[in-house]
């Protein structure tokens, strides 16, 4: 297992290197500059700014500089947020996005898995149809529509919760619900399908024949096996949730990372584009590794140890 993780870790470093390099060169292909009043500046003033930020150098040289600084932990400073170090920006802004994403993910996974299991156990009853209906709604209506509706009815009309901003736990409830609808639907659908299949398999029949109780069969034997596909899809979904949603953050006035990432691309804020890409990519490869390790814990058949089955 340790060797496997080490090997995977090296692959992760390599993947990150590729992502960073490709992003860097793609980013340099975007027309325009990160400077705001570029069109007003004279040639000499433009030159002064380019030299100050090293943009007068050929792109490969800039790339080398960036890579060296990155290894030293220096991701540069933002242009849109006047000279704020990118590392600080990411640190400040990742918090709210990650908290919101984690809440939505946990709520989504728990509710979704429960819905899926119940639907599978009560197959073709009104419970099943109800759960499927919720799943279809959650999958087909975008989160910003839920966000808008929740904000208008729950906060503005009923006044039960704050309309927006980020001043404490009560402020996280509406955005969490809006964000959780999608993971709920995904978890519920996968769970139901898998659960139905597992419940029909031979070893469940065997367990029944051995006289195991209904609850033991459902939750000890069936659930564990049915979780595999759910975990496969939920891993990457967790990354995308925790790295922030532009629209949800905008609607609820949350100082998160999603909005800032999109804005950095729109304004050619090179250091922020790079920093955010690195963060997203690192989280992504990390979650994939975690998912692979989880497989082994959940399903002994997938356990990897030098290729030998235990």
């Amino acid at each position, binding site marked *: 297992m340790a060797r496997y993780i080490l090997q995977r870790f090296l692959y992760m470093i390599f993947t990150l290197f590729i992502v960073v390099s490709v992003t860097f060169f793609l980013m340099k292909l975007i*027309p325009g500059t990160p400077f705001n009043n570029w*069109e007003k500046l004279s040639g000499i003033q433009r030159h002064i700014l380019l030299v100050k930020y090293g943009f007068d150098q050929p792109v490969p040289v800039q790339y080398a500089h960036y890579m060296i600084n990155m290894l030293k932990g220096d991701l540069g400073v933002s242009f849109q947020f006047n000279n704020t170090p990118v590392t600080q920006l990411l640190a400040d802004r990742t918090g709210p996005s990650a908290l919101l994403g984690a809440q939505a993910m946990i709520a989504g996974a728990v509710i979704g898995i429960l819905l899926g299991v119940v639907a599978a156990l009560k197959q073709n009853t009104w419970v099943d149809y109800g759960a499927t209906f919720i799943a279809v709604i959650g999958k087909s209506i975008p989160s910003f529509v839920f966000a808008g509706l929740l904000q208008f009815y729950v906060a503005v009309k009923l006044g039960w919760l704050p309309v927006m901003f980020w001043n404490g736990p009560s402020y996280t409830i509406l955005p969490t619900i809006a964000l959780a609808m999608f993971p709920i639907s995904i978890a519920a659908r996968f769970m139901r399908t898998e659960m139905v299949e597992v419940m029909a398999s031979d070893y469940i029949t065997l367990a029944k024949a051995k006289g195991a109780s209904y609850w033991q069969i459902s939750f000890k034997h069936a659930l564990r096996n049915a979780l595999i596909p759910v975990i496969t899809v939920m891993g990457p979904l967790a990354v995308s949730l925790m790295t922030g949603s532009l629209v949800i953050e905008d609607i609820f006035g949350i100082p998160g990372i999603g909005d800032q990432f999109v804005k950095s691309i729109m304004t050619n804020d090179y250091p922020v584009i790079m920093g955010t890409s690195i963060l997203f990519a690192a989280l992504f490869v990390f979650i994939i590794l975690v998912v692979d390790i989880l497989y082994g814990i959940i399903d002994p058949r997938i356990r990897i140890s030098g290729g030998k089955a235990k």
Partner: protein
Amino acid sequence: MKKSKLSLLLASTLATSMFLGACSSGSSNNSSSKNTSSAGKLADKQVINVLESAEIPNLDSVMNEDVLGSEILSQVNAGLYRLDQSGTKVIPDLAVGDPEYNADKTVLTIKLRKDAKWSNGDPVTAKDFVYAWQRGIDPKTASPYVPYMMDDKIKNATAISENKAPVSSLGIKAVDDYTLQVTLEKPLPYISSLLTFTAFYPQNQKYVEAQGANYAKDASHLLFNGPFKLTKWEGTAADQWTLEKNADYWDAKDVTLQQVNFNVVKDPQAAVNAYTAGQAEITPRLASSAIISQYQGSKDLMQYLEPSLWWLKMNENNPVLKNLNIRKAIGLAIDRKAYVNNVLANGSVEANYIVPKEFAKNPSTDKFFRDDAGTYLQTDKAQAKKLWEQGLKELGKTSVTFTFVGQDTETAKKEEAFIKDQLEKTLPGLTVNIQSVPFKIRIDREDKQDYDIIFSGWGPDYDDPMTFMDLFLTGGGQNHMSYSDPKYDQLVKAAQTTLATDPNKRWKALQDAEKVLLEDDAALAPLYQRSVNILVNPKVKGLQHNAYSDFSYEWVKVYK
């Protein structure tokens, strides 16, 4: 000023930072919230909550290039002059009275108040101005905006910003602690309004140098000398901050408001929801006509014309657009009334001019530039078709295709589709290919002149028609369409030089130049002058707005 702020307001949620506008006054004063009627009693709590659509990108007055940055700076700091409550008149702030001029109006002597203080207790002196101005123009500082504001205006600014003269040669001198002497390159009729701009504000040398790289990092690394102090601002990425009344401001007795709490909201509908729920008294600008129409006629809606214009630029490097009849046809073909009423539907007005309405008063008659100027290129589809066919004949063509570069926001795309439809339906044989691109790329395409027709605009940098009229000089930095007419050049240059001290003749020359540009040459096709729409709680009165396109809270009062 590039019309980024307009386009970006169209862009709503994806809005990036806005460019600095003007140093000027002169905007409309017919908005509802200007109502200063004394009816009603003041509320006990003089506190308001304001929603902003973006974070403050910079609060170092010599590095800032953003409208919001300039708005906040002018609340917490004071310069020589300030715009009054109407937003149109220049009044002394740290200066005592108007500047005294020498005979040819190139040297100004300005006396300073002796009772102005920084928030660390230091007095504000003439040396603070000299320091800030020199720091701003110093190429080592690499300020993105100060050189633009000073070049060709303040003596030696251009040479210094291009590293050809020492910083100390800048045309500003502290005669004594409370007397400033400013030397100009040439007489500037609009100099006192230019000096209201935050790029000309003072800085405390001792403090700035002691902070080093931390200067202006957050609220605790700034000094204040204006009507308010900034608190709770954790830096450029902060999404909330607060202004508190500065008891040490020399004019503190005229400031009623105790506190302004700001929060950033990027989604316009969400901002309206927060306003409706009573979480805020003032919203950011509303761009969507759907939202605006809900509030049309309501006491909450504050609507006024901004001195900013949108137009179509035509690239004369394209031989077809070099043809005068073709350009005139395009200028005449678009139904601007339908454009502002049906497509924009936000109070914007059709423009048959370049210098906006309710902008730049003639100093000798006190009338706005537009009031005695003409209108040009009035929509005339029959005439457009005739000129178009004539133009095509001259070129020996039966059909042409133009690349039309516009922006990729929802509202802008609607506008572009409308323009395409109007042009193609009026001008036979024309195909318009729309390319909707993000803001930065549109600017880049204009800069590189990579378009046939481009959707573009401009807002003022100071309170004078020159801020629009010098844009299209032959070879000018903002021309970007290869337009050149010696007649136009001569009129504008005369207004800049020989006529600078004769307001009436200067005005006439600029009005004639506008006529040459539009009526004789149809160099570009003006489209509309934009209006601003925000929601203001009717209990909040005295909000000032100005041609910088920003607001001042100095005179705000909350009523019961």
